[in-house]
């Protein structure tokens, strides 16, 4: 076998000039590598699901008795569910971003950095990859709807999924933006924990946003994650049959000076923030060695 090819002359290839096509190809490669990696990393699928499921089933079921009075007959797990839909992509997207630190430490990133492609293609591919992987995780949580008495409505599922995709993209962009600066895994995880955990708690994933203490209400309005959790809840709740009282107190929505922010504006806020962070990540990544 090898004898046959040994008689072949040298196969010589040529590297073409950089073009838009080559950039798109690079984006696709980075994206695909993210997926391959996710597929081979079974542990990650499980570990990133543990936390959201703990919140949903353990915390939700555990506090249910305490909270019955305040939820107007709605099961607490049902109430928390939209929040969990949001945070399930949060953890996975964070892990995807973390792999940029990992790649730097173990060198594969450098292989991409000397290739004749723009750094921006690498960052964009990474964010798209992170978004894809995170949405796969999100789908698993969508599948759990029945367990918390939420009907499997196709429109709802599509809307939830689209929102998850946007959120996952933005969170990955955020993670990449941080990861470009930080060169060690431990510190990256520490920093992300420090930022993500408060964001998660303040977002209103676990409590309704009406009638909060003033300081918390203000913080909540400034928390980007809140603008993913709120529309998520609105989408899910619009497919539930609830008493008007329950709807008013549980799904009051985020207001700006009395104006209830519409779903589309909230989704746009998530995307715009994501794009800004993506831009910062690209600039930072292009200027580091």
């Amino acid at each position, binding site marked *: 076998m090898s004898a046959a090819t040994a008689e072949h002359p040298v196969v*010589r290839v040529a590297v073409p000039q950089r073009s838009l096509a080559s950039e798109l*190809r690079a984006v696709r*490669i980075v994206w695909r590598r993210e997926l*391959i990696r996710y597929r081979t990393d079974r542990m990650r699928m499980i570990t990133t699901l543990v936390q959201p499921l703990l919140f949903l089933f353990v915390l939700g079921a555990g506090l249910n008795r305490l909270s019955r009075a305040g939820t107007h007959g709605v099961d607490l797990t049902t109430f928390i569910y939209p929040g969990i839909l949001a945070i399930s992509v949060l953890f996975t997207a964070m892990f995807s971003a973390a792999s940029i630190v990992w790649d730097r430490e173990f060198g594969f990133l450098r292989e991409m950095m000397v290739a004749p492609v723009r750094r921006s293609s690498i960052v964009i591919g990474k964010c798209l990859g992170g978004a894809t992987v995170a949405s796969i995780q999100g789908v698993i949580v969508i599948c759990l709807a029945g367990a918390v008495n939420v009907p499997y409505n196709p429109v709802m599922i599509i809307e939830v999924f689209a929102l998850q995709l946007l959120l996952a993209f933005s969170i990955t962009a955020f993670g990449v933006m941080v990861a470009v600066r930080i060169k060690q895994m431990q510190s990256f995880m520490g920093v992300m924990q420090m930022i993500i955990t408060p964001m998660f708690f303040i977002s209103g994933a676990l409590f309704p946003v009406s009638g909060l203490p003033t300081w918390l209400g203000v913080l909540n309005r400034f928390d980007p994650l809140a603008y993913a959790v709120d529309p998520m809840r609105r989408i899910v709740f619009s497919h539930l049959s609830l008493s008007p009282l329950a709807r008013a107190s549980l799904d009051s929505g985020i207001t700006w000076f009395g104006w209830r922010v519409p779903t589309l504006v909230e989704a746009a806020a998530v995307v715009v923030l994501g794009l800004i962070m993506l831009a910062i990540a690209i600039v930072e990544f292009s200027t580091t060695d």
Partner: protein
Amino acid sequence: MAVEETHDGPATPAGPATPGGATAAPDGPATPTGTATPTGTATPTGTATPTGTATPTGMATPTGTATPTGTATPTDTSGAAPPSSRAGGGAAPAIEVRELVKSFGEVRAVRGVSFEVAIGEVFGFLGPNGAGKTTTINMLCTLTRPSAGEALVAGHDVVRERDDVRRNIGLVFQDPTVDGYLTAAQNLQLHAELYGVRSDLVRPRMRQVLEMVGLWERRGTAVSTFSGGMRRRLEIARGLMHSPRVLFLDEPTIGLDPQTRRSIWSYIRELKEQEEITIFMTTHYMDEAEWCDRIAIMDHGEIVALDSPEALKASVGTDRVTIQTDDNEAAIAALRSQFGLDAKLSEGAVTIAVAGGAQFVPHLFDEWDPSHPPIRGVSVSRPTLDDVFMSYTGTTIRDAEEDQSRHRNRVMMQMMGGGRR
């Protein structure tokens, strides 16, 4: 998989390839490096083929008519090829560096180096840890911006024409960068796509480079199961995947066993023959530097010597006499007082550099005063690259590195000690 076993014994630098090397002619019987061994005829291409049936001509002539794939034309397959031709001739050098400087804050890692590498040359950078070898490579590969100075690689400026440089170079990093999650073939596939290699050429090219490093049979295996040497070889294959004109190898053989090191060197020679590739590499193995056409000795960010290994050795002009005694300090003092020689302690033995070492030894024994510590053993060696290094930097490369690691250890101990209190 038996590719690397099929080597002729000693590592013979292919004599004729060295440009001005004939001047050194170490003809004495005591040549330790074996430059005078008569095996210089063994062509690298012949030895590396696993079956041995392939005639060297079949590999070297690019006109093979019986190519089933039809993809094998060696001429550039795209019109976008750079203007300067591969064939070279009197073309510009492959690498041109002028007064290159890199500082990291206070640390001046590279302090104004200048050199040229001709097309098709194997050029080596030799120096102890921290000499600035990797930093220089990173600048040439556009990974790090120079603080000052200028460098052209394959005719393109490393700062202003980064993309053109990148299209023309292959790079094997000091630390492994192959992706353990992927198989060998996936790694190469990814690389080829990243470089925009035409998809119908990917497969034959992959086969070519993987066979060269003896990994074709293992192409479907996940890289995480590869041994260190296999990863290294895969990395070299990957660096070659896009037919670069200049291949940079940063310590390609570090941490490998002698046999794998030898096989990697035979790929390097083979490459040079087959692909007219220019090779720029760093090493801190003296014996490896012998394989290069020319070497630059680097120390503390500066090039202290640059020539062919033979010329460098010839320039030393002295032999190395090593003496074993029970009391080295006393022996050094005795040599100084009695013979006026400046002896040094190196690697645990007393070392003297003298012209005509073989004649010096009888003289030494005749004159050695009985009151001095008795001499237990003597050896004389013709100048090696170690001596070259010594004569330009004042220490051997190993001593230089031990000093460094001792320093590092001390700093670490201090840090740890400080942390505990």
